[in-house]
């Protein structure tokens, strides 16, 4: 069963194309990696699928619900870690998670338990009553990850989930994704630049460039198709990006 299905999904901002004719299927329980260069349309896709913005044309269903006519239902079953994370810096981690949980109508006793569990999991249990303004970037990212999971969503969208995290925390996030993916039937839609992360945790990968979906397949399929040693080579070939090695003389 498809957790996400888009049909000719298009978003145009004035004269700029955000996403063009996106046809994509992500299956229930799958961990899907969405790769693409900066400005390729990853975040626009995530925003469209989370009903934050409206498509210019095309259709999409998330969890079986239409993103236009059943947006409230879509929002209830999805969790999102945004690319540019917003946070109320004058709230404590505990208060912030309570705030987000309330927005999703999580009952208070359950919410309290989940907040404690998530803070403990991310090793922030003893810092739950500190203001977020004093947190490092990685710690804030952990709080935001917790906020994306606080209402126990069926489908989780993670836009650069390991951004700003140290290797230990990054490992923790990868393990969390793997664990949730295998033990619960959650679907993960992960946008990332970190190709080893995608290679390690994603079952299938989509590569988007200039608003258009260029390739979809498992990492192995893609590597075989392009005769590449790793995902990085696939990515560079698909997007046509080459590293120029012209050194500046004075360096």
């Amino acid at each position: 069963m498809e957790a996400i299905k888009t049909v000719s999904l298009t978003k145009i901002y004035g004269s700029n194309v955000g996403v063009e004719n996106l046809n994509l299927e992500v299956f229930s329980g799958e961990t899907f990696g969405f790769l693409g260069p900066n400005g390729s349309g990853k975040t626009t896709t995530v925003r469209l699928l989370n009903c934050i913005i409206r498509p210019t044309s095309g259709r999409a269903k998330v969890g079986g619900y239409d993103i236009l006519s059943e947006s409230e239902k879509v929002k209830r079953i999805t969790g999102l870690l945004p690319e540019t994370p917003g946070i109320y810096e004058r709230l404590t981690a505990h208060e912030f998670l309570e705030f987000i949980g309330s927005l999703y109508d999580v009952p208070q006793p359950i919410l309290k338990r989940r907040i404690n569990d998530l803070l403990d999991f991310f090793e922030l249990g003893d810092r739950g009553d500190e203001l977020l303004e004093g947190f490092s970037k990685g710690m804030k990212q952990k709080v935001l990850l917790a906020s994306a999971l606080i209402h126990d969503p069926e489908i989780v969208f993670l836009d650069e989930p390991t951004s700003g995290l140290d290797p230990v925390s990054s490992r923790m996030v990868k393990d969390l994704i793997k664990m949730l993916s295998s033990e619960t039937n959650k679907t993960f839609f992960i946008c990332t630049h970190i190709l080893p992360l995608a290679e390690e945790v994603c079952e299938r990968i989509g590569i988007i460039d200039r608003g258009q979906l260029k390739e979809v397949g498992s990492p192995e399929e893609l590597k075989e198709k392009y005769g590449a040693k790793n995902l990085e080579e696939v990515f560079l070939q698909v997007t046509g990006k080459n590293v120029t090695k012209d050194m500046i003389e004075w360096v």
Partner: protein
Amino acid sequence: MPSWLAVAKNEYRLMLSGRVTRRLRRILPVMLVSLVVVIAVALPLVSRFLFLELRVREYLEDMLTLPLRPDPVLSLFIVDTSIVLRMGAISGTLAFVIPILVAIGRQLEEVEVVSKDVVLSSPLKPVHVIIGEFMVNLIMLPVILLVSTIMLVPVALTFYLTFQAVALILTAITLACLTGIWVAVIASTYLFTREPTGKIKSALKALLGALGVSMGIGILFLSMSVTPPNLWFLPSLWVASIIHFAATQSNITIIKIGFTYLLMPVQPDGWTSFILLASLFVLSFLMGAVCLSKVNFTGIEKKEEALIVKKENFFYRAIRRSLPSPLSVVTVSQLKEFTRRTDNIARFLSVIMFPVIVLLMSKMMQFDFTKVGETLVSLASLSGFYFVLAGVILPMMIIPYIFIDTKDILWTIKKTPRGVKLLVYSMLAETIILCVPMSIVMALLFYLAMWSIGGNPAVFLAVMLFMVFVSTAIATGVYASRPVFKEKGLGHFVNFVITLIATGLVVSATFILLVIPWIPNLLVAEPLIKAASWLPQPTSTLVSQAVAFLLINAAPKDPFIQIAGAVASFMLGVVVAYTSIKRGTRKLELYEG
């Protein structure tokens, strides 16, 4: 390029970094200085041309309208010169206080947003930063000179301003302005190097806010006051004395009271004022130079300290109990985010300066013995104006700051099932919760300021609360429709103007319904009658009579009509508030999507 010039250039670029203003970077200083020169040269020429003609016309008009004047010939030579002192006081206040407010305000903003690592890691000396800061702030000098010279036009039309007089006036304004800039730059350097704690910064912001409000209100009252207040120790009034001396060639001011004239010595006199101003200028620069030698940029980085929040207090618990969930949780979160930024609270509390200054000024004006009747009308209309303004501004001290730096969190909230609707309603609840206690205090202070004119404290309170509710809803709707996420931005001004006009229209409609047989009717009537006087006859008379008729006769005497009117006003407020919130929510849902 010298380091101080690099600092100045960078600061100048930051100052004019907007989309429109960046195009003016090259031309702006030239344009400002040219305008000052043109006006400074034009003033004596125009003054010389208009001086006699104006005096003769005034004389003829007086002869026609006041045939019983005891000595019309004498009146030709005696002109009310107190206007010069009033205009001078306003120019002086602008010249001295505005540079301080602007320069410190800019530095306070930068202290918050700019990482100093880049500056600290460069081979820059403190003196370079300070001179650079001073240089860039000099852009204010031509602006102040321009505004001051424009304000002196009425003086040039009444008195013959010579080139020497204009030069003396511009010198005085320049001295006051340079002193203000220098004092502000030194104070800014203190902030920059000492890295004040949040509380000190908040206190400074509140002080600046209070100073700004006091200056604005004070200037208007100064312009209304007939006798100049005896505040000889203020540099602003030294400038006024110098301008008075330059324009009238005298240290005696003449106040026109009906058909008689009152002579009063200007204190301190023109030359003493000039010496005092020049001394202040020299002293401030010397003291600044001494302070500079002690400035050190090393070791000033703020220490990161975790702030552990204690258990929730009664205030938040009460809100949780009184509002339905999840609105209560979201409102409490919003409130915590707002109130824990102490500068927000400081800014919010600075609105209290409105009634405080009005109260002080009203007490001062009651002793203004020269034009008692006119003073009371002026007091009523000015106080009424500030009463409405305070009611509108109070929510505007909260709502814009809820939006600042929250663009990213808006995406998080837009993603939730209830979307932004819950956020908008929580903002409304938050603002009302904060505004109600302040409204009560402000209403009582305004009542105390205006009690000599009349009114009932309950009416003051009801009207203030009504205005604050309507203004809160309109401002929330306006900001939701047109969110502004940066602290600096033209959008804040546009939103403020929209809110002011919309709330003003609703409140005016309420007054026009005459459901409150109370002095604010004057607020509508007086400007209308004044505006009508500019219309051609017979329209002018008809409009004035219609307004006067409404004012005198249309006030409902029947209690039933009064209640119906009150209900109608209330309904009007509710409908406008609801429409605004509804529209704002819809617009915010569609924001960038």
